[in-house]
């Protein structure tokens, strides 16, 4: 049985839940009270992850921490079709997973400051976030121009999209205006319309009416 150490309002946990559900994997959840309980900083939890971070997954007799690492592990061991992590595009995939990590350090940090009152340099976090949004918006704009819908060229979305999606979609909770990034908004619209997508709190994907679905 797969076990996920999880927190509902964490975008990094959300990524893992999304992929687990898209891969149709059964798992049990162990909820960790990140805020306001700060349980992830407790001694008990530090035995599971010395970094005191979520998510962590228990799978195949091992503990794997770090959202991006978990995405790679699941996509390479549990996706027989290899759609979520196509090996012929592994370079760009790793590149965008690292990019997602920078998103956590900036856009997500700004959200922690605003929504959960964490103390940090929020102006710096927002400025860093804007630089990343510009890079992603550029990338997606030119991808669309070339007829592509996703971060990595190809028909099917990949773990690169999953990794980048949550904190970008939640950016406004950290006081970052998404209005300048029209290509990002079209991409988040497409992403939220994928079959089986279920939002986390703070995202506003209103389901399309049946008659408008293609």
């Amino acid at each position, binding site marked *: 049985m797969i076990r996920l150490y999880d927190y509902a309002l964490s975008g990094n946990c959300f990524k893992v839940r999304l992929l687990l559900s898209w891969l149709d994997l059964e798992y049990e959840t162990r909820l960790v009270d990140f805020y306001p309980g700060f349980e992830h900083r407790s001694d008990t939890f530090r035995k599971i992850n010395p970094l005191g971070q979520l998510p962590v997954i228990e799978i195949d007799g091992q503990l794997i921490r770090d959202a991006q690492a978990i995405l790679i592990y699941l996509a390479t061991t549990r996706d027989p079709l290899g759609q979520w992590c196509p090996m012929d595009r592994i370079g760009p995939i790793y590149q965008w997973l690292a990019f997602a990590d920078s998103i956590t350090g900036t856009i997500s940090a700004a959200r922690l400051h605003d929504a959960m009152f964490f103390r940090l340099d929020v102006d710096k976090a927002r400025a860093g976030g*804007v630089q990343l949004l510009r890079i992603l918006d550029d990338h997606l704009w030119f991808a669309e121009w070339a007829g592509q819908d996703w971060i990595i060229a190809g028909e099917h979305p990949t773990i690169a999209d999953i990794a980048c999606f949550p904190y970008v979609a939640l950016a406004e909770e950290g006081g970052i205006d998404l209005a300048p990034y*029209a290509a990002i908004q*079209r991409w988040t*619209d497409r992403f939220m319309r994928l079959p089986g997508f279920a939002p986390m709190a703070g995202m*506003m994907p209103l389901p*399309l009416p049946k008659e*408008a679905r293609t």
Partner: protein
Amino acid sequence: MSTYIVALDREVLPEGLVRGRMDTAELVIWRGASGSVHVWEDRCPHRSSRLSAGRNMGAYLEDPYHGWRFAEDGTVIHVPAEGGKGHPEISAHVLASAVTGGFVWASAGVLETGDFAGPPLRPLHFGVSANRVAAELDPTKTRITPWGAAACMVYGIDPDAMAAHRMLTALRRRLEAAG
């Protein structure tokens, strides 16, 4: 009252809602089932919530907060709290708009689109005022829309799209670094 470009025509997708700005006004831009593009202030006449957080249902735009529905002409056609009654006397804040040359134009006053057409560049958001950017660019190839007092969106036409895009990106870096 100036007329500004507020979006690229081909980026206003059916079923989508595009957010934009023009001077101090926040905008929601959408394409209705009729195929026409509408430019409204992004503010619900009910309780001022952001219409761009709603959904484009083709025949109407729906505000998620209390479910008011707005027809393509902006009028309220459905209020759930009143059993789905319409209110033709209430309307979204509709701006004058038109589509020409691949661009969506809008004005809070009289619309004057002029002739500006060509292969559109990637629109670029600058974190400096429209005036500062305008001083650096060729007005025959660019149109600048103020986004509040300290930012703007630059729309351009150029057959050599990549070279022009690189030039604009470099200009943005220089102007923003100068503060």
